[in-house]
């Protein structure tokens, strides 16, 4: 009984989120959809409690190391790192929903419920070594995202977004499940730890052994699973849905997709790749095929960032531009995974954390801008800089960060990514990434140019003080994190992640 309560304590953040989601749904039913702001405040309080619990957990994990709850939930600092940022981005998205003048307040209970449901899925997805639970979390996240993308029922674009998302998503989920079933058939376990390294008597065969015996089935299974992840984080060639979904979905939902959902997908990808192929500090049998997977990921990274950046150049809509920019950034993060070292993984995690700040800011600007003009094309930005200076300057900070220039966190994040890739012998990839950063300068600064260097077009002024405040804070954080105030703790956190994966010494041999 005591063990039971102790394990409940380990998944307390997830339990709080679940309770919150059910509370929101019930309250909305009782209130019949009135007092929508109260539901927003309740959500914020619940998220704050979750965040506090996660911080407690972070400290606890430092003393005790990785914990396992109920046999399949792995609580480690890697997962907690991503959960903290998921909660943070959820809180900001909730604020966006509350402050977004464009957002209808109809069906707001469902809106919050689905958002929280998506983050429950993300939570379980990032904190398990078990492919079954990982898949279930991914499905929960996806299901909620599909319906959120189509939340504006009167809008054709929103419906189209939902349809494209669900069709591509269903296909990729099927592909991934097929890969997982092959992996299970080959190794006899769903536990990634055992799959990577099966000790004697564990009743499983490690994937490396199977690879030596028959490479083709293993390669196919791994590629199928990777395809599922690649879809989730919109890596080329599984990116087709991204621009349309980002454009059609309600903007706060797009924000969540670009930040929360993508980070959760990367977390699961890193865990999967890390458990099976991470090459440093392991016996030589894994190195042989880990390097090949790393090379595959490196090629995908190069194609993804190049295609994303080149497509972004041609976009007239700010929302579509940010969609392609998010594809390009998926390529940068993939560089860290491709380097196949814990250093590279830590760099990828740091970059994702940096990406949280700058992308949340950019999408917040988009919501503000849509609220003011009702449009989302870059040409309508004219004169924004003079009419709304605080917001416009914040946006400039985010653009600088997205490009990867000092003094922002984006620069530092790219720097450590590049270091990690060079250490792993991927100098060619770093050169491609550097060229890509230059390309991205053009389209990011087209936005800045439009805001400051052109004559203002007459507009009806509209004020959204709250949003402006959030953007300001985010911008300050982005710069400070780059200058060093938060840089080192963040770096430390990111370094803790891969260290806590404890891939090689798994004690999950009970099954």
């Amino acid at each position: 009984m005591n063990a039971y309560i102790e394990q409940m304590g380990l998944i307390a953040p997830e339990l709080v989120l679940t309770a919150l989601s059910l509370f929101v749904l019930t309250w909305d039913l009782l209130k019949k959809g009135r007092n929508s702001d109260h539901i927003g405040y309740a959500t914020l309080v619940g998220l704050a409690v979750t965040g506090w619990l996660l911080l407690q957990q972070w400290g606890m994990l430092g003393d005790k190391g990785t914990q396992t709850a109920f046999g399949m939930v792995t609580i480690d600092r890697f997962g907690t790192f991503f959960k903290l940022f998921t909660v943070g981005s959820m809180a900001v998205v909730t604020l966006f929903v509350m402050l977004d003048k464009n957002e209808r307040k109809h069906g707001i209970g469902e809106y919050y419920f689905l958002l929280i449901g998506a983050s429950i899925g993300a939570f379980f997805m990032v904190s398990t070594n078990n492919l079954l639970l990982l898949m279930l979390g991914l499905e929960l996240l996806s299901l909620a995202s599909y319906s959120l993308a189509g939340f504006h029922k009167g809008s054709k674009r929103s419906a189209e977004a939902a349809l494209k998302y669900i069709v591509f998503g269903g296909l990729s989920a099927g592909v991934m499940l097929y890969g997982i079933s092959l992996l299970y058939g080959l190794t006899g376990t769903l536990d990634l730890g055992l799959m990577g390294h099966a000790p004697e008597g564990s009743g499983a065969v490690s994937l490396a052994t199977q690879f030596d015996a028959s490479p083709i089935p293993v390669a196919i299974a791994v590629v199928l699973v990777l395809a599922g992840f690649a879809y989730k984080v919109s890596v080329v060639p599984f990116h087709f849905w991204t621009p349309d979904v980002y454009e059609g979905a309600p903007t706060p939902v797009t924000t969540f997709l670009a930040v929360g959902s993508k980070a959760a997908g990367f977390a699961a990808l890193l865990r999967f790749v890390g458990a099976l192929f991470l090459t440093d500090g392991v016996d030589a049998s894994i190195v042989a095929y880990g390097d090949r997977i790393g090379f595959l990921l490196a090629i995908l990274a190069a194609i993804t960032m190049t295609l994303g950046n080149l497509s972004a150049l041609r976009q007239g809509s700010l929302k579509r531009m940010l969609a392609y920019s998010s594809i390009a950034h998926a390529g940068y993060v993939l560089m860290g995974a491709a380097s196949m070292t814990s250093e590279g993984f830590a760099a990828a995690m740091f970059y994702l954390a940096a990406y949280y700040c700058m992308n949340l800011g950019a999408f917040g600007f988009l919501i503000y801008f849509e609220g003011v003009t009702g449009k989302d094309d870059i040409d309508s930005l004219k004169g924004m800089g003079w009419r709304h200076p605080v917001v416009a300057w914040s946006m400039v900070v985010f653009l600088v960060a997205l490009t990867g220039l000092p003094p922002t966190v984006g620069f530092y994040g790219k720097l450590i990514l590049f270091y990690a890739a060079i250490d792993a012998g991927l100098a060619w990839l770093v050169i491609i990434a550097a060229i890509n950063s230059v390309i991205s300068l053009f389209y990011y600064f087209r936005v800045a140019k439009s805001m400051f260097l052109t004559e203002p077009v007459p507009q009806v002024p509209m004020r959204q003080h709250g949003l402006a405040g959030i953007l300001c804070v985010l911008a300050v954080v982005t710069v400070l994190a780059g200058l060093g105030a938060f840089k080192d703790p963040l770096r430390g956190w990111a370094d803790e992640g891969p260290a806590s994966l404890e891939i090689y010494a798994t004690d999950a041999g009970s099954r």
Partner: protein
Amino acid sequence: MDQVMLQRAFYGALALLTLTALGIGLAMAGASGVAFGLFTAMTLGGALVCVWERSVVRSAFSLMATFTGVSGYFVLLEADFLAMAQILIYVGGILALLLFGVMLCPPDMEERQLKRVLPGLGIVGAAVAWLSMEVAGSARWYVDAGAPVGDALAEGEFSNARQIGVGFLGIDQYVVAFELAAIVLTVALVAAVYIARRSSVDLEPREGDA
């Protein structure tokens, strides 16, 4: 007239294939071989009819044979709970959903000609077939040495639903996934009702809609 002949030829070939499958099954493994042949004929035949028929409703109904055949495989593998789930969910639910889905869609008058997509289908099909052959030929599937061979069910047990129950609800096994399934279902419930519900507010066009 040509159409009728084609139709007859197709179903004739299907019947022949079914008989062949039954015959091979009988020759190779006796009674359970016949059962396997029958389920294979149902699964593949249903899928073939689904592709062959021009009427979407007939295609959907032919899937019933496919789903039932798959549940037959589960019975042969002594996974009776899965067989039941297959019948209950796929034959009972998914098929009805498919039919409603088909009927909700406006008929597509400009159906794409088979000839135009045939090369693409051929290439993809050949690639999948080749990969499947490679996997089937070279994979060394994991075999649990400790598992009982033959009669997997312990004495006095009539179903493996109990073993599944122990796995689902046992504290250190799959209980988290089991409870998460409830949340997944609830999210699906809310999403489905929200999307399908009709109210006047939802039908107003939104601004910014092209």
